[in-house]
């Protein structure tokens, strides 16, 4: 297996590799600049707020400019216009222009630990989206976090997050991806628990980290398996990468458990990691709690970017997920494999599940959080059924309007003196007009209001793919129902917040320009982005697949398209109408129950309590862990504690024994010895009795002895 890969690699190595474009070689700057800025900010003292914000915004601006330049590199038209020679490397099996820079970091025996980055259409659009939305949110944060004393720390973490997210986007090596993935998780933890003194925030941060960890463990498993099977950490490596056709062929020939191929099993494991990060059922429980963090954090991390990282991951390893299905070469539309089927079902289920819960929530951010979970389900379903372009288009549009909605919610919270319960808001249409207009645009984009808003086109792309999915039709109906629910709960929310009368305490005020300007920019894009994904001009899809597309109104003439557009428009109007009818006029007072609550209190109760998923976890997993902790504690105190106490007792005994030995044997022996010596000395001293005659006798005796010796020696 390894030998084949090496042979293939050598084959490709002989092909001349054109010199890399300038931007590709410096692509690493895009994530590095915000990370460096974060490092510098971490060394600053708290009062240096302007410098911190300036560093963060400046570095991200640079990253945005570089990302735009990278995107520009990918555009044939732009190159032709500017007169550049397009030198992107295009392999014979894959028409998507893609450049990689790989290098070996460590060599362990014969295995190489490689890192590298890739610039292709997928990463280019993601880079631009992340840096642009991130920049707008950074600017917004200057206003939102103005009264917070830990302003500097906020920008340090945000900058680090931005760098890590950009790192995830450009990573060509599974290891680099995982490192940045974990870093993103870490910054999410730090930012959710930003107000760490609040117990709910600390608990939410911990919950987020642990839940995504469950996914990450499976992700790591999948990664290691991929590495061991394909022999390389790199995704793309001129034909020798782990998701390039040669390696995929090898993976498909291997069989794992449950009738899966190795490719399928690895794909499912990687999807587990994506499910954790992107809040798919059942690992979605952390996302609503993550709203404890500041609103810019919710907007950037938990709406636009980090949760989108899971979707991006699936898009990145799509060749692996789709391996084995019937594919046209170069097309990023999928056939169906087991992995993609699982992705689709999980996504569709999550979409409906979260939308249902969102209907009964009363916290302005929590509604948006469940909405995010639901839309992520849409994206996953879109990937599973329609391929990379479908899922990614919805991801891009969703990033803009969800960020817009969150920032709008933040503006509302900021203007209403930190009130987050929608039952205590109302009538803000008059008090906060700019916020209302931008929020309405975002809300309509999310609902998928026909034609003018980007959400309509992206969601329709998913619905279109669902309609033509040849495995089952159920996801289509589920997603359609989800669209109905989406329109309904968003209208409910807008009705509560912006219509009716003011139910709060102090009067509300509009937010400053530094906050409303990003809202306006995002609103513009929430509408304009639809243009690149219409069937008349599917530029986005073509860009990702490496084709050039022209404007062709005949695209509208596809058979089921008109019916589909009509059906989805109908559903949206139905939802909007229902919501307006129930909540448009006079929203109830805070003490009164909701209209639907009065109608179906039990169902409403289930939905409000989030369908008891957290409670199920608490009763099963967490209860098990608590029990296990008790067992371990008992073991520790009784068993090991007993052992330790026993050892201590034994040592005490030994010490006492030693003491006795010492007193009686050692000391006694020593003392006895000394006494004996003294006695012997006393005995010998008797020789010196002081009497002369004794000495004389001894002298004479000695002479006799000497004489004897002399005689004896002379004789022998």
């Amino acid at each position: 297996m390894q030998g084949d890969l090496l042979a293939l690699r050598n084959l490709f190595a002989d092909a001349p590799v054109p010199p890399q474009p300038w931007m590709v070689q410096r692509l690493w700057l895009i994530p590095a600049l915000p990370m460096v800025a974060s490092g510098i900010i971490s060394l600053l003292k708290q009062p240096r707020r302007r410098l911190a914000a300036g560093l963060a915004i400046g570095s991200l601006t640079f990253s945005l400019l570089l990302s735009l330049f990278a995107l520009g590199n990918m555009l044939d038209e732009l190159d032709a216009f500017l007169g550049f020679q397009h030198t992107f490397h295009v392999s014979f099996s894959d028409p998507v222009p893609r450049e990689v820079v790989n290098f070996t970091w460590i060599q362990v025996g014969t295995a190489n630990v490689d890192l590298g980055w890739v610039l292709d259409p997928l990463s280019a659009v993601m880079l631009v989206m992340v840096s642009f939305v991130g920049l707008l949110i950074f600017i917004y944060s200057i206003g939102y976090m103005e009264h917070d004393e830990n302003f500097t720390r906020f920008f340090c973490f945000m900058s680090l997050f931005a760098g890590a997210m950009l790192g995830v986007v450009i990573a060509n090596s599974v290891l680099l991806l995982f490192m940045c993935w974990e870093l993103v998780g870490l910054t999410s933890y730090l930012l959710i628990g930003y107000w760490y003194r609040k117990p709910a925030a600390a608990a939410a941060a911990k919950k987020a980290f642990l839940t995504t960890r469950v996914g990450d463990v499976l992700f790591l498993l999948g990664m290691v398996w991929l590495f061991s099977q394909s022999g390389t950490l790199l995704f793309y490596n001129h034909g020798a990468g782990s998701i390039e056709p040669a390696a995929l062929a090898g993976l498909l020939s291997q069989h794992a458990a449950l009738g899966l191929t190795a490719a399928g099993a690895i794909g499912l494991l990687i999807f587990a990691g994506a499910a954790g990060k992107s809040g798919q059922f059942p690992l979605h429980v952390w996302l609503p709690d993550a709203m404890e963090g500041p609103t810019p954090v919710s907007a950037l991390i938990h709406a636009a970017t980090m949760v989108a990282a899971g979707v991006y991951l699936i898009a990145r390893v799509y060749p692996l997920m789709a391996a084995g299905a019937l594919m046209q070469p170069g097309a990023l539309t999928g056939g169906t494999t087991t992995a993609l089927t699982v992705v689709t079902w999980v996504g569709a289920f999550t979409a409906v599940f979260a939308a249902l819960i969102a209907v009964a929530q009363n916290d302005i951010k929590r509604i948006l959080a469940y909405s995010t979970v639901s839309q992520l389900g849409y994206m996953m379903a879109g990937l599973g059924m329609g391929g990379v372009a479908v899922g990614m288009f919805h991801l891009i549009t969703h990033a803009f309007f969800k960020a817009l909605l969150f920032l709008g919610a933040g503006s509302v919270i900021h203007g209403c003196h930190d009130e987050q319960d929608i039952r205590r808001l109302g009538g803000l249409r008059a008090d906060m007009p700019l916020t209302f207009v931008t929020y309405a645009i975002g809300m309509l984009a999310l609902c998928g209001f026909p034609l003018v808003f980007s959400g309509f086109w992206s969601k329709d792309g998913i619905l279109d793919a669902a309609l033509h999915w040849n495995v089952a039709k159920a996801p289509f109906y589920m997603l359609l129902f989800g669209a109905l629910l989406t329109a309904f709960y968003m209208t409910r929310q807008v009705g509560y917040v912006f219509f009716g009368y003011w139910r709060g305490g102090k009067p509300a005020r509009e937010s400053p320009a530094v906050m409303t300007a990003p809202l306006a920019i995002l609103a513009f894009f929430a509408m304009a982005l639809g243009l690149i994904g219409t069937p008349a001009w599917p530029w986005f899809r073509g860009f990702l697949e490496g084709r050039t597309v022209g404007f062709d109104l005949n695209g509208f003439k596809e058979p089921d398209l008109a019916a589909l557009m009509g059906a989805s428009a109908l559903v949206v109007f139905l939802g909007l109408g229902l919501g307006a009818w129930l909540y448009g006029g006079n929203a109830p007072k805070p003490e009164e129950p909701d209209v639907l609550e009065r109608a179906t209190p039990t169902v409403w109760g289930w939905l409000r309590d989030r369908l008891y998923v957290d409670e199920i976890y608490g009763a099963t997993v967490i209860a098990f862990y608590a029990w296990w902790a008790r067992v371990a504690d008992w073991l520790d105190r009784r068993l090991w504690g007993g052992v330790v106490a026993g050892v201590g007792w034994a040592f005490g005994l030994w010490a006492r024994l030693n003491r006795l030995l010492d007193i009686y044997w050692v000391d006694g022996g020593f003392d006895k010895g000394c006494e004996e010596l003294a006695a012997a000395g006393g005995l010998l001293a008797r020789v010196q009795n002081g009497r002369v005659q004794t000495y004389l006798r001894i002298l004479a005796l000695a002479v006799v002895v000497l004489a004897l010796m002399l005689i004896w020696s002379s004789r022998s």
Partner: protein
Amino acid sequence: MSFAFYLVAGLTLAGGLAAVLLKNTVHCALALTVAFAGLALLFLQLDAQFAGFAQILVYIGAVAILIVFAILLTKGSETPKDGVFSRSWLAGLAVAAAVFAILGWAVLQSAHVLPHEMAVPQVTVLQIGNALMGRYVLPLEIVALLLTAATIGAVIVAMHEKEGRK
């Protein structure tokens, strides 16, 4: 051996025995004198006339007198209460017997290599005087020094100490 030899030897030995065995110290000193006389006779028998007369002059005439004086000065004539022999006299006797055994055995063993009858030497006092002043002048002078030192020493040692130096 002639009868005279046995007589004189017996006399000498008897005198010696008496000198160490008698209780009264003065008697011991007088017995010693007899022993000295016997030895002088033995010297004469051995044709060492000068040595014999020197023996009589010095030993009997000076040393024996000196011993008597010392006995009298130290009240030696009184018989001590515990007896004249030391408590462990047997050990001393044993050692002395051992010494005699060795000496006697050595003499008897080497009897066959010892020379015997030789010519009688003719020794005149002149020869002795010449030898003293010639060959043996150094020992003579040393002995003179020794005698001087001994005299002075004996006087100092035996002198009464001055009062106040107790």
